[in-house]
């Protein structure tokens, strides 16, 4: 065998591993880091809500209704004021983070499982499976999400569980579209043909050859659909058909504040801003993940 030090063929296998390169790109991407930090803080707030909230979010006090937040001349007793039933706004915001994140995560998870299974099957098997899945995607895309969700909630009655399940069963379209096209792309690669020629079973090819190469797209869609689900929950709650009172939900808080909007605009603005920050953080993270994992950024 040739001398390793001098043979150009054997030298120079010293570049960073894909994992090291990924780590480097993650820590070099500002949007991703900002999004991740903000989202991380909100997740921690939701988890530790009982310890962080200064008051019981359900405790009403008709003597202390609609107190302004501290920056508008209120007291530190209620830093963000109180609502029309005298409930502490900050505590309701903190508990509301639980609702938003729960709905976002679980709805994205349900639709992710449905959409990924459909998309990967369509992309890998093609033919009739693909025709059926494409048809289902088109049917789903022809349905307006909010109207269907409203109709279902109106029939089934609004509750956290119903909202989660309805959104989970409605938001799989983007997963299916993206997973189908990425699978289609990957299955044409020669390493898939090589795995088949080696005698790999179809499940093994899907799990160990296809999935690892499309999971980056999946992560991006998960973040987008999480933000989508959170916004839809807020919209449904605002319309009175989402999470039912007295559960603290940001959309519900906007809805309850809207009657007072002309006199006490902060009642709408505070939950609105928090919702905005959460969705922005998730989208920043999704954008960042897409940049970081995009093939054109690979050297």
């Amino acid at each position: 065998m040739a001398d390793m030090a001098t043979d150009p063929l054997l030298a120079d296998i010293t570049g960073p591993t894909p994992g090291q390169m990924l780590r480097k790109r993650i820590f070099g991407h500002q949007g991703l880091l900002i999004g991740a930090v903000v989202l991380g803080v909100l997740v921690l707030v939701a988890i530790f809500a009982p310890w962080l909230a200064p008051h019981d979010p359900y405790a009403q006090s008709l003597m202390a209704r609609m107190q302004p937040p501290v920056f508008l001349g209120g007291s530190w007793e209620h830093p963000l004021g109180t609502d029309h039933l005298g409930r502490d706004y900050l505590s309701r915001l903190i508990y509301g983070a639980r609702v938003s994140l729960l709905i976002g995560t679980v709805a994205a998870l349900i639709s992710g499982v449905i959409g990924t299974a459909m998309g990967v099957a369509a992309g890998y098997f093609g033919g009739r499976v693909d025709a059926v899945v494409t048809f289902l995607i088109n049917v789903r895309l022809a349905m307006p999400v909010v109207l269907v969700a409203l109709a279902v909630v109106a029939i089934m009655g609004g509750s956290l569980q119903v909202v989660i399940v309805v959104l989970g069963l409605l938001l799989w379209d983007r997963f299916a579209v993206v997973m189908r096209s990425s699978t289609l792309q990957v299955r044409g690669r020669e390493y898939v043909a090589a795995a088949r020629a080696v005698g790999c079973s179809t499940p093994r090819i899907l799990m160990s050859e296809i999935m690892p190469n499309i999971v980056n797209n999946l992560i991006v869609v998960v973040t987008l659909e999480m933000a989508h689900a959170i916004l839809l929950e807020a919209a449904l709650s605002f319309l009175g058909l989402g999470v039912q009172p007295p559960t603290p939900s940001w959309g519900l808080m906007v809805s309850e504040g809207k009657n007072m909007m002309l006199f006490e605009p902060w009642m709408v603005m505070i939950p609105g801003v928090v919702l905005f920050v959460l969705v922005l953080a998730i989208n920043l993270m999704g954008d960042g993940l897409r940049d970081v994992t995009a093939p054109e950024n690979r050297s």
Partner: protein
Amino acid sequence: MSDVNKDAPVLELRGVTKTYSVKQGLFGAPKPLTAVNDVTLTLGRGEVLGLVGESGCGKSTLAKILLGLEAPTQGEVLVDGERIDATDRRRLARRIQPIFQDPYSSLNPRKSIEDIVSLPLLVHNVGDAASRTKAVREILDIVGLPARVMQTYPSQMSGGQRQRVAIARALIMKPEIVICDEPTSALDVSVQSQILNLLGDLRSEFGLTYLFISHDLAVIEHLATRVAVMYLGRIVEEADVAGLFDQSRHPYTQALLKSVLTPDPGMGVPDTELGMEYPNPIAPPPGCHFHPRCPAAMDRCKIIAPLPIPTPDGHVECHLFDGDGPEPVRSIS
């Protein structure tokens, strides 16, 4: 392997045809596309059959059929006299392995080299983890890669190194037949010869039989023992490598030989006299598929498809040889 009859063909194709139906437009009726048309070939043990032809002539489809990735529409493929459609896929995988064209696409970028090379062992439940690692180390050494590459990823390697990994993966199960689908066309010229020499060395070391697909006649001449020339899905000429290069019969083969680039840049790109572009395989020309581009085309070429005519070392499909022997009926110069 000593009990195996040396003369029996290790790989045999009988009248293999593959037709795809291509749909044109949303409401267009599907049209048949015959990618491989009535191909009959035999490969003896230890032979290297070079398969040449232009892009799109069906070479890669033929390779997929041999690997069991596509089923032929008609005809049968036999490995050691056993039909491959009746053979278990995993059993077939132990006998026939591929080396693909593009080493940037044939290795899963998410897997380490050890995982890639040991995948066949894992799938076939050969040995335990320790013995698999040992086998990977041995085969990497045979293809000329140091053991330390085992923990690296394909993106860290050069094209030639990756192709060596692909060769290692193909050989780790000790197959009898290796289908090389243009294994050097994606590589630098300097690396091509290394890989070709490696393939030649491995053939003698393991007693491998190659089906070597290429559009580069120089590569074929270097490695092959027999050559089959493919045009629009048909084998138009088959001969021993020396015979084909000394005395090619089919006008298409002659044009291909003319197309080989010479090292002298002053001579420019050689004129193959083929003129017209490659015909549409969905609507192949009638009669002999080659007649619109053939410098020696006669009237009957436009109507009647030529039949394979046996020659001393193979066959040729051309009306020029319709007479009483392997000599041309008419000069084609």
